[in-house]
């Protein structure tokens, strides 16, 4: 459904030192840097998949989304979505996609949200019945009954984001691009938005590509993640697989009385306080149950919990590993 092959894009960026002298100099001679925003990016996504696209700031996430939504033309490479090249066939392409840029708004500022929705209906030429069905469904799922009658400028960020997402789905797109959809939302709104996205993916089989810095989004939503750094695809795989390969083993958080335990090979300290310790377990050397047996034999354990690495830690580790 979505095929990207060797997509590259370079941006020209004007650079100068701070200060008046440098500003005057720049009048006569401008210095430019060329930033390779995307460097031979390739991946393919099947229909109905939900993919998390992650990477640090400036890695090229938004540029990729822009290329896939047809508003940015790459220098080289091929991008084919639904049999079309988005930037060459923009008008036909965008009819079948929905886009939410978390940092911008597609709602008309001064009019009630419902008016914006009707405008979107006209722009996309959505049939009356389809529109009513979609609107009803979205209103119910996203809890929009009352806010839909409010002008967009008077909505809270969370309310607005729910409306933005609804607006991007009114024309029943086959693909939905979400560029940081939960940015700045409180936990309640985040969870509402996540539930909704999951629902849409399941029920309408909408293909969803999501960029985010919130690892809970990824954890809650996607099975597959694509990691991009410095314009390159570094990893492409399932979250479980990644955790297995890159997370190392489990960690044991231990509360105890008296002396801290002696560690045997395969165990290592992550944190060590007077009555509390976090201990890492090396999967290859020792099983978790053997580790627990060892620990309880060597100290008086008052509390113990075993956890895997969190996705946040995983991502930090990945960023470190790839030097991005």
């Amino acid at each position, binding site marked *: 459904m979505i095929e990207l092959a060797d997509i590259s894009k370079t941006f020209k960026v004007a650079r100068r030192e701070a200060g008046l002298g440098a500003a005057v100099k720049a009048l006569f001679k401008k210095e430019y840097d060329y930033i390779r925003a995307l460097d031979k990016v390739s991946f393919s996504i099947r229909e109905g998949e939900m993919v998390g696209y992650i990477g640090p700031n400036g890695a090229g996430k*938004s540029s990729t989304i822009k290329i896939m939504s*047809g*508003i940015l033309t790459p220098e080289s490479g091929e991008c084919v979505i639904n049999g079309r090249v988005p930037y060459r066939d923009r008008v036909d392409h965008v009819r079948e996609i929905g*886009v939410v840029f978390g940092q911008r708004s597609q709602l*008309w500022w001064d*009019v009630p949200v419902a*008016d914006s929705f009707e405008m979107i209906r006209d*722009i996309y030429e959505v049939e009356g019945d389809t529109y009513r069905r979609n609107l009803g469904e979205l209103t119910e799922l996203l809890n929009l009954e009352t806010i839909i009658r409010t002008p967009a400028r008077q909505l809270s960020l969370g309310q607005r984001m729910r409306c933005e997402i609804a607006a991007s789905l009114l024309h029943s797109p086959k693909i939905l691009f979400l560029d940081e959809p939960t940015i700045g939302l409180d936990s309640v709104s985040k969870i509402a938005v996540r539930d909704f996205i999951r629902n849409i993916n399941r029920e309408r089989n909408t293909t969803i590509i999501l960029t985010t810095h919130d690892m809970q989004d990824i954890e809650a939503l996607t099975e597959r993640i694509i990691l991009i750094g410095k314009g390159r695809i570094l990893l492409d795989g399932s979250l479980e697989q990644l955790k297995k390969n890159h997370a190392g083993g489990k960690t044991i958080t231990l509360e105890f009385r008296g002396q801290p335990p002696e560690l045997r090979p395969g165990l290592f300290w992550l944190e060590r306080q007077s009555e509390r310790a976090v201990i890492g377990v090396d999967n290859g050397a020792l099983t978790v149950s053997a580790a627990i047996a060892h620990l309880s034999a060597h100290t008086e354990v008052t509390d113990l919990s075993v956890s895997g690495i969190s996705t946040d830690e995983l991502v930090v580790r990945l960023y470190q590993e790839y030097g991005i």
Partner: protein
Amino acid sequence: MKKYLTFFTIRFTTRLQYRAAAAAGMATQFAWGFMNILMFSAFYRANPAAFPMGFDQLASYIWLRQALLALLSSWSLDSETLEMVSSGNIGYELCRPVDLYNMWFVKDVATRIAAVTLRCIPIFAVSFFLPKPYNLSLPPNAGTLLLFLLSMVLGFCVIVAYSMLVYIATFYTYSPLGVRWIAISLTEFLSGSLLPLNFLPDGIRRVLELLPFSSMQNVPLRVYSGDIAGQAALWHILLQLFWLAVLVALGQVWMKNALKRVVVQGG
């Protein structure tokens, strides 16, 4: 087609809310109109024969220009479209299944019509009832009125097509201010907004009347008072059609090229 009507409606209704701006604009337009009339009446008193059109025709020219200012002037541009590229909102704009040229054209049309709707009626009303020869008089006959309407619609389309070039230029300059000022200063004088073009020396006038700027205000406003009539009117209207076609074609080609290199600003 319906989607363009939708764009028109939303722009039109949004712009209609700007009542204070309309009131202020109207006051300026009245003041400027009166000043123009006073100035020219002093000149005419010195030697009425030195001017290429009668004072009553000139008064009509001035009042009509003031009433239709929002419709025909180069500076009543749509600020939202001007900011579109520098603010990065062009991103969403491009995610719509609509031809960007047509969409912006319709928005500009709507902005201008909304602005003129609020402003023209009081100016028409007052200037009609001013004492002769300072007033806005009716065109000499019904034929002239029809010709004027045709020429006004064409002039309106020419100015919108010209504004489109200003909007497209913002793809290249990022900040809309510079282009805007260049476009305005070029047009103010050359379109006959400051002075009907037949007030200029013959050689210059002949050249200027061939340029697209003349099609914007000079032609329709002079057709109204019968100063351009008959064969000359037809010739000027043909020229308006020609420039409209050229400007629209130019804009569309340029837009296509601009979109190839568009960079959506900010994250």
